[in-house]
């Protein structure tokens, strides 16, 4: 009951906000409060590891649409609420048009709907809503850069969803069902059928375009960098994770672990390299999002409960940290007027102290300093990887992240800087608090005992070593900027790359069964 109420309720409140436009801004916090209450009541039923399932309309699973709530759904709902609250507070002083708040409501409605969805076509519809809402939010300020970036995004996302629809058609033809649970039962013995491999590839490629996988999501740097900071925070922190959640749901039914690991690895490495050598603040954060998604995919691909817990925890952790970073970065760009990171820019008094501290906290969380939430998640992941090459891969990505974020050191100095708007400071606090409080609250995905047993001094030592080494590498590379190829981010090359990696994924899948 409540599961259906969350998305539909927000849908309803969004429409109400449109009808009563003057009250739009005030309705939002109340709606969020109601959400917290609803999620809290669901939590008590899900906490033991069981899941709550509801088929809308009371029909059987093969007739209606099923919604299932489990710990993962609620964890990401929690992330969605925090981010929306932070964004609302961040923008409290600047009066936005009611249209903006309506879009926020619809965004929340679709995020809730997606975390509970277990039906292939339902997932298609919700992903299309997410595409549309992100598209409208990115182009909100109507600058040419944003419009061009969101147009690219729309074309690629539509192409991806068309592929996804092809995959759904093939699967339905051969199995007669769209429900993921029933699908799992019906393809039980058929893992080596060619049509299943093609359909799985189509589904994975289609969703990966939205999920921030590197070779598919080449629209991401332009779109996230050109959007306004609050929107970037929401997109990088929340919407990308939704794609990863869908990939996770698919991976519980289809056998796609090998492509996920390979794609995750490539995403992580190439993303890290690009992050290291981008000197524009918001673009660098966008590339960092791409490379962190690599972590998530590798964890999902490995498939053990520990790996999945690690990667989905990191999803929430990264959402919080990246949201914080984007909000702070937006304030930096606002106060200094320049989008590039450089020494003179960093020392200016104009950058508020609160923003600097926020950047500091976000950076620490992303580079994995214990005991912040970033470390918890990365530690779990590194504990879950047994094979040496995979472990080295993750270490390399972490290293790259540290090198990249060391660039921000001049900016992080809280000695300089004036005081900040209260609203902005509060919004940083909303996101920073869970980052610190994660360890006590880590029963989100794994039980308290389990977390402590895996995050021993070995993981902590590894993290600290990586941070130290990364900083040294940064000092070495400091004077030598490298220009990386930017042509692949054009639409045409992006589509060619998508097609090429489609074949690679297909052969990976075919080879692994």
């Amino acid at each position, binding site marked *: 009951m409540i599961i259906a109420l969350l998305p539909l309720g927000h849908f309803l409140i969004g429409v109400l906000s449109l009808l009563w436009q003057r009250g739009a801004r005030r309705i939002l916090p109340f709606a969020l409060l109601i959400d917290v209450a609803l999620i809290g009541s669901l939590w008590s039923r899900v906490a033991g590891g069981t899941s709550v399932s509801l088929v809308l309309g009371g029909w059987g699973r093969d007739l209606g*649409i099923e919604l299932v709530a489990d710990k993962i759904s609620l964890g990401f709902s929690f992330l969605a609420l925090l981010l929306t609250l932070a964004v609302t507070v961040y923008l409290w002083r600047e009066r936005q048009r009611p249209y903006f708040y309506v879009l926020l409501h619809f965004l929340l409605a679709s995020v809730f709907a997606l975390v509970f969805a277990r039906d292939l076509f339902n997932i298609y519809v919700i992903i299309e809503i997410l595409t549309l809402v992100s598209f409208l939010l990115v182009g909100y300020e109507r600058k040419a850069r944003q419009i061009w970036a969101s147009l690219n995004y729309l074309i690629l996302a539509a192409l991806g969803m068309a592929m996804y629809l092809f995959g759904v058609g093939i699967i339905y033809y051969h199995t007669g069902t769209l429900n993921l649970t029933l699908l799992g039962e019906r393809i039980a013995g058929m893992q080596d059928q060619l049509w299943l491999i093609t359909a799985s590839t189509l589904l994975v490629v289609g969703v990966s375009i939205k999920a921030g996988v590197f070779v598919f999501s080449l629209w991401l740097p332009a779109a996230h960098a050109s959007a306004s900071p609050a929107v970037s925070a929401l997109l990088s922190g929340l919407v990308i994770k939704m794609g990863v959640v869908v990939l996770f749901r698919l991976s519980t039914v289809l056998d796609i672990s090998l492509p996920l690991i390979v794609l995750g690895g490539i995403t992580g490495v190439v993303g890290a390299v690009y992050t290291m050598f981008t000197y524009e603040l918001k673009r660098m954060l966008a590339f960092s999002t791409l490379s962190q998604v690599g972590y998530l995919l590798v964890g999902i691909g490995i498939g053990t409960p520990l790996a999945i817990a690690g990667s989905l925890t990191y999803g929430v952790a990264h959402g919080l940290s990246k949201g914080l970073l984007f909000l702070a970065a937006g304030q930096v760009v606002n106060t200094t007027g320049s989008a590039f990171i450089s020494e003179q820019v960093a020392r200016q008094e104009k950058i508020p102290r609160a923003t600097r501290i926020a950047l500091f906290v976000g950076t620490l969380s992303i580079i994995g300093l214990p005991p912040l939430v970033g470390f918890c998640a990365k530690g779990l992941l590194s504990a879950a990887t047994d094979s040496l090459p995979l472990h080295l891969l993750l270490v390399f990505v972490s290293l790259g992240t540290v090198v990249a974020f060391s660039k921000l050191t001049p900016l992080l100095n809280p000695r300089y800087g004036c005081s900040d708007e209260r609203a902005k400071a509060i919004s940083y606090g909303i996101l920073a608090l869970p980052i610190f409080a994660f360890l006590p609250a880590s029963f989100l995905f794994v039980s308290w005992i389990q977390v402590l047993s895996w995050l021993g001094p070995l993981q902590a030592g590894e993290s600290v070593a990586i941070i130290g080494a990364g900083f040294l590498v940064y000092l070495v590379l400091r004077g030598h900027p490298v220009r990386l190829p930017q042509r692949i981010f054009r639409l045409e090359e992006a589509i060619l790359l998508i*097609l090429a990696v489609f074949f690679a994924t297909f052969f990976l899948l075919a080879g692994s069964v």
Partner: protein
Amino acid sequence: MKSTAIGILAILLVSAFCVLLLLTVDYHGARGGTDNPYLAAGASETGAVNLVSGIYLNYRLYDSLFELLIFSMAVLGVRFYLNAEKSTKPNVARVAESPVVRIAADLLFGPIMLIGVYLIVFGHLSPGGGFSGGAVGGTGLLLCAAALGAEVVARRFHEQIIEQIEWGILLLIILFAVAPIFFDRLPLTDLLPSGRVGKLLSGGTIPIYNGLIGIKVFIGTWVVIYSFIRHRGEI
């Protein structure tokens, strides 16, 4: 990369892609799954003879709600972006008032609207439904605008009221879908009992949804078309 290289790569990759799709999927193989569950009891359960309507307005109403949301957001987005930018005075010559268009519109407008209403009302008995009926109605209005001029038609529909009606109808649709929660049933089951199969007054809640969706799509189509016309200057 030079454009010839892009072209060659494109031909290779795209044709390989098509070949892959055509070869690997077993199009003549046995259809999977058991007997279709919808065919078995669909008509009597939903009360609608048109099973497709029965599916997307009863079994899978959730998807249709979100699809309506997408449609509404598209209308919202089109209005938001096009109305804010006053286009520079276009150098488009006004289309000369042609008597042919006017006479044809006179003759055709009535039947078009009638067909639209028929599609909406009989959506549960024959192919059609709210979406197609609404689209037909909207296109009929476009014909009217082509004959009379868009401003004349738009003056009849006050913009604020139209907007309120459109979103009010969406509100009604959602409330209608969610209301069964408070009547002690799982959400989205039909409120009204399904009547006799095959008669006009049957189909449970499906005709109501069809009607509301039809009005909504009608208004939405007209708003989208009119926003484009107004932005450009004239048809």
